[in-house]
């Protein structure tokens, strides 16, 4: 029960998100990016991360928040994540990066079926803290569907 997550919290379009700190490699200032014509909007660009070309993904598009303008607080969170069976470096856009913190499992709850604006299969857990809601996204699901770019997922259970 005492299980706890070390997470990095950041903002996207006014909501707070959290990523497991173990995945996070580095937080970067915004840098020049190169658009990849024809790619899914969710991963529409690549960046140069220490001599490697890595994709830059925008979680906002997975959560249908729309693109936001870059601000002085905008950052890129570089994570190391298994992508189609091989470890890959991926940059994630963030409007603002907060801190590394611990979320107790007891603070979190399952994703409610209704009442959310977002695709529930993209969310792993929800955590409450100081009256705020922290979203822990399900990166596996988001990445395999390329942020939902390949059409909406039809739920298997219909009743």
């Amino acid at each position, binding site marked *: 029960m005492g299980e706890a997550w070390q997470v990095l919290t950041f903002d996207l379009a006014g909501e707070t998100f959290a990523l497991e700190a173990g995945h996070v490699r580095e937080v970067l200032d915004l840098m020049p990016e190169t658009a990849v*014509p024809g790619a899914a909007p969710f991963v529409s660009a*690549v960046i*140069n991360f220490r001599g490697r070309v890595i994709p830059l993904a925008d979680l906002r598009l997975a959560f249908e928040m729309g693109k936001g303008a870059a601000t002085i607080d905008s950052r890129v969170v570089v994570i190391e994540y298994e992508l189609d069976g091989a470890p890959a470096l991926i940059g994630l856009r963030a409007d603002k990066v907060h801190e590394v913190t611990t979320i107790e499992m007891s603070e979190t709850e399952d994703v409610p079926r209704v009442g959310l604006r977002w695709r529930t299969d993209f969310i792993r857990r929800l955590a409450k803290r100081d009256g705020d809601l922290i979203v822990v996204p399900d990166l596996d699901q988001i990445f395999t569907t390329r942020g939902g770019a390949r059409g909406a997922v039809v739920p298997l259970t219909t009743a």
Partner: protein
Amino acid sequence: MSEADPVETFRQEAQDLLEQIEQGLLDLAHRPGDKALVDAVFRGLHTLKGSGAMFGFDALAAFTHHCETAFDRVRKGQAPATPELVAAVLAAQDHMRALAEGRDAPDSAGQALLNRLQRAVDGAGESPAAIPEGPPLNRFAIRFSLPADALANGTRPLPLIDELRELGECQVTAITDQVPPLEALNPTDCHLAWEVFLATEHSRSAIEDVFIFVIDDMTLEIEEVVSGLSDESEPEPEPELELASPPTAEASPASAPGEPVAESKAARSSETVRVPAERLDELMDRVGELVIAQSRLKQVAAGSIDPNLRAVSEEIERLASELRDTMMVVRMVPIAQLFGRFRRLIHDLARDTGKSIELSTEGETTELDKTVIERLADPLVHLIRNAADHGLEAPEQRLAAGKAATGQIRLAARQSGAEVIITITDDGRGVDRARVRAKAEENGLIAPGAVLSDGELLQLIFHPGFSTASAITNLSGRGVGMDVVKRTIEGLRGAIEMTSEPGKGSEISLRIPLTLAIIDGLMVRVGQGRYVIPLAAVEECVELSAEQDVRSTGRSLITLRDQLVPFIRLREQFKTGTSPDPHQKVVVVATGQERVGLVVDQILGDHQTVIKSLSSFHDDVEVFSGATILGDGGVALILDVAHLVASGQRQDAQQLRAAG
């Protein structure tokens, strides 16, 4: 880890040895009298046996021992290297390979192979005028001593003496002069020397052969003891002549009978270092990053007035480019390595198809990136199989068509700019157009009666699921085929092309970039983005005049020296949303015979590029084959020319259809 695993090391060594043995055997089939080849094969077998036993591959060692014994007779001139013998040893060699890889190889199979080998040797030994029976005996006085550390290094004197005993009657005396007093004695050192009186029917070279593997470090004196009936017993002069260095007099220890050139060559080639390919790749990455950092430095220096900074920058530029060139060379291996494997393939194919096939190769010294060579192996095997199975006719048919009974398959490689062109040519029946068409219509690849150019018709062969073999044979025609070959070649950023003349044969040519790691590119600007076009594919750059631009809006075709070339407006393809530059350029790129123009806003110049692959997120974006990092730290995408050309041709075909 794996690299330190002695068993794995042995396996790799065994692979190399077996390959050497195989090459030797195949050469031997053509030049049965070549003694250097016989020796090379024998040495290979012997080394394999020795190191096999050392690493606990006892079955392998035992089996190889028998082959070695059989081959030893060839070496001693007691049996000629007949085709049957070569075939038997080749078959045996497969068994060794299985044993070395630790695969399940039943003993019975091994025994059968050995029996076959024995028959081949026996049969061979008797047929030609055999060595006259009971030649007069030669008498030799042999003195030899081993270096002090010989025992520690694994040399054992006893088997050497035993081998001498096999040659004839021996009297062996140990010479103990050099043995130090007990208190000074190092028990692991070898202090003994031996004196052997040998009466044998063999010549001096047979004795020298006993010491063949230790001769470099030891001292050996062989003296012929002239006896009464010696006049005729002068050993056969031939081996004497070959080993010109040791005359009848004592060979001094310093100039111990040197082996002929072959041996010293072997010694030299062993001065290579085995490096895991990943380490080379890592090194290549670092070099690539260095080149990028260097070009940033160059930009900084160009904006500075400090002459020292400029000098250092130029120095580093020179060093970095030399380092990159060296690195490229390190990764290059001659294509002979690849071609060598196919000789065995042809040998087996000839056996399986009952056809007589001759393989000739050309340009074996052409070098290619190691990774590329490895990835070329499978497609080439497939193409050669196809040529042998579908291309070449049976001997009777060939004779009926007025050709030589033996079919020719030619493998040639040559470098052309930043590409290597590999051609596979056969002199068989050529592609049956009618059958290709029928098959394509049957599979719904083309509409019945569709008008196709000859080139387009031949291209159908590379279409997925296309196979003209009416009977499925062991060799080819399993439906996975040319399309897989094509995909692999394209995966290497290469191109495949076929020409065929009915009744005369076919030729398939592969154009492969020299390396996967670095390309020379032409950097262009489209809208705000910078892109790199592989320079090897660029034919020319022309200006797209405003007039042409307007005229060609309906049909995207330009006239280039009386030829219509379809073009693609990259600005539209990439949806840049920018307005075109006033002076747009057309970069004409080609793969093989097909050309397409790419309309860009600006040509920025050539750029040597380290290729970075894109993540699997961008697998579906086929227009780009990779990305590269520019001097200013930005990223430019590399265009996949083969894909663009294909889509350009498609678009062209659609337009033609729409037009008429």
